[in-house]
């Protein structure tokens, strides 16, 4: 596969606004999972990974007059998009030929659930909030930042952002674009907090991915975007890219709407196919950023799949959801940025809160260990319905 260069990245999550804060939190092992504060929920016993800014504070940072117009997803998304575009030195008319591909699922549900009772017989303003869909969410994120050549919204639940990265990569490889901005955004909503709670897969303590006693996930929120471009485009713009997307794959577990297969078939196929497109062998990977939600089912299934692909001598693995919570549709791109930080600063993000090994499962990285130079990282994202995707990020040799 011809290299796909990454020339910009922006990230917002519970552990920081921007890459600098995020890196500091990851290296200091500072989790962003806290008591619920910004979402007005009665479930105060459920810890969450909220972005530590109110909508007003985000609107102020973005220089937007009235925060009322915007969904929280859009505000979070704008902060991440702005950082990615700045790093890639893209602004104004340069964006006319750039394509924007974003993943989301909940869309504008955070505002809709507040006004739902007023909908019958409502006027245009309420009706527009009520019908704010995934596409409107992507449009609102882009608004004021760029007049993109095209927009697309992927909605494959918790692998949405990962699949947005894959769609962007395919556009570059087919010659349909020179530059794409890809990723995803999702805020917490009562809708999915209560949905996950009803499914009984939320931990009442900070989540413990890959621990024998893990008891579910914590929900989080955030956004991240990558600017990806062809070699010719990066060269023409005089950039010296540090990272490439070297492989990727999308498969389906084809097992159940909300559960993973016991043998992790979809995850196995996704990781295997991603290695194949990258032309890499399992032993070439120095770190795996796992999907690792912390639910008994996911971690067991993913652990089996990792052992099937990598064998007993699997590379260091961690789930950074122990820092951010599960940021659902945005998780794939947020964790992609974590992978880029790990490549750049040559460190292994830890799997915090871990104590006890699973039976016959993988054991994640929990402390500083000697590791070889990190050249290739594999990152997993799995969604409801078995929409399983894997990405491989590599460091460009100087």
């Amino acid at each position, binding site marked *: 596969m011809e290299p796909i260069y990454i020339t910009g990245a922006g990230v917002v999550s519970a552990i920081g606004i921007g890459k600098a804060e995020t890196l500091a939190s990851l290296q200091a092992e500072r989790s962003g999972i806290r008591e619920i504060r910004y979402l007005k929920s009665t*479930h105060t016993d459920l810890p969450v990974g909220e972005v530590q800014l109110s909508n007003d504070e985000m609107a102020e940072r973005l220089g937007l007059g009235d925060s009322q117009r915007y969904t929280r997803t859009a505000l979070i998304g704008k902060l991440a998009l702005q950082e990615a575009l700045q790093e890639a030195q893209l602004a104004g008319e340069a964006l006319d030929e750039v394509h924007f591909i974003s993943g989301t699922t909940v869309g504008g549900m955070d505002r809709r659930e507040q006004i739902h009772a007023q909908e019958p017989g409502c006027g245009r303003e309420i009706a527009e909030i009520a*019908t704010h*869909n995934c596409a409107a969410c992507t449009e609102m994120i882009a608004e004021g930042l760029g007049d993109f050549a095209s*927009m697309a919204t992927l*909605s*494959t639940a918790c692998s949405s952002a990962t699949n947005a990265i894959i769609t962007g990569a395919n556009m570059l490889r087919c010659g*349909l674009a020179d530059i794409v901005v890809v990723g995803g955004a999702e805020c917490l909503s009562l809708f999915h907090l209560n949905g996950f709670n009803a499914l009984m897969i939320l931990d009442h303590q900070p989540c413990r991915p890959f621990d024998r006693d893990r008891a579910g996930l914590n929900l989080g929120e955030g956004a991240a975007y990558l600017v990806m471009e062809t070699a010719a485009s990066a060269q023409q713009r005089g950039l010296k890219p540090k990272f490439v997307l070297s492989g990727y794959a999308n498969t*389906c577990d084809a097992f159940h*709407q909300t559960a993973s297969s016991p043998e992790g078939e979809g995850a196995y196929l996704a990781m295997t196919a991603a290695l194949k497109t990258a032309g890499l062998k399992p032993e070439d990977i120095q770190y795996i950023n796992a999907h690792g939600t912390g639910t008994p089912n996911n971690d067991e299934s993913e652990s089996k799949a990792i052992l099937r692909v990598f064998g007993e001598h699997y590379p260091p693995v961690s789930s950074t959801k122990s820092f951010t919570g599960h940021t659902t549709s945005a998780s794939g791109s947020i964790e992609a940025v974590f992978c880029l930080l790990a490549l750049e600063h040559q460190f292994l993000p830890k799997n915090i809160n871990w104590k006890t090994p699973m039976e016959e499962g993988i054991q994640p990285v929990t402390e500083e260990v000697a590791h070889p130079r990190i050249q290739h990282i594999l990152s997993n994202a799995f969604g409801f319905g078995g929409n399983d995707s894997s990405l491989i990020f590599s460091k460009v040799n100087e």
Partner: protein
Amino acid sequence: MMGKVYIQAAEQISIQNPLSEAWMEEPIVYHEPFVKAVNPAFREYIAPNEARRMGNIMKRALVTSLKVLKETGIEHPDAIITGTSIGSLDYTERFLDDLVENGEESLSPTYFMQTTHNTVSSTISIYTGTHSYNTTYSEGGISFELALKDAWMQFCLGQISNALVGGHEEMLASYYELLRTTGYVGVEGMVPCSESSMSMMLNTQASPENLCELAGVSVFRTKSVQNIRRQLEMLAEKANVKVEAIQTVMTGVNGNPENDRLYQAVLDEFFPQAEHLQYKQLFGENFSVSALGLYAAAHLMKKQGTPLMLFVNFTMNGDCALVLLKGI
């Protein structure tokens, strides 16, 4: 150099007779502003115990998909790609109503489990045991064309030799009222707001049974006729076709002046002599009805021996799709 891609088979459930091309001879005409789809006998395709757990959109998507798989003899397509703007609307509204009316305690997960937009695509995979590429686009009125473009890219990269591509949308009376208030549907003189489900098989294998050739797909954003000209010329050039040779154009004209304006400008500017076909009089308006348009275009080309057709979809917020079709 990319090989040819064909539309091998296409099936629909809509406000016309389901799983049939009866609309060609005996179209059903509606005068109501909102019309639900005509469901087929689901039990002929899906076991009742399975169907009971599924919302309308899933049952319809599964039935159109299963019929296409049966017709083409393909058990496990190389890709399953879906476009849907509002997805499992019914179950989403039920969970939301429950949440807002009864608060955050004692909610059932049954409806929530099927609210994500990818439920449709993944249900087809789960039902058929297909592990291949599976994705979902949710981009308003251009969702289906993005699914089509995704398949096109994978053919271009040589990653697949067939793909099951669909566009599916369900609607509720309460949501219709909201959409009417925004001015999207229910405008005086406009076709009804509807529901629709369409699945088609794309295949690289040539056969006289194929409906037509899919010769190119272009998706972009603009409201300017000049930008559309540039995109049209690029699309035609790649497909080795002259724009002047296009004598048949199918549009999404629906009787709402705000929707129809750009179509009319493009027809006047580039295709003053071409035959102008419309499909929304038959299938109504919803976010994924353009999938029904492409289905109708493919079947009409087959029946009438049309050599070349341009399919056009413009949404009111500036998304544009051009699809070029060639006769077999």
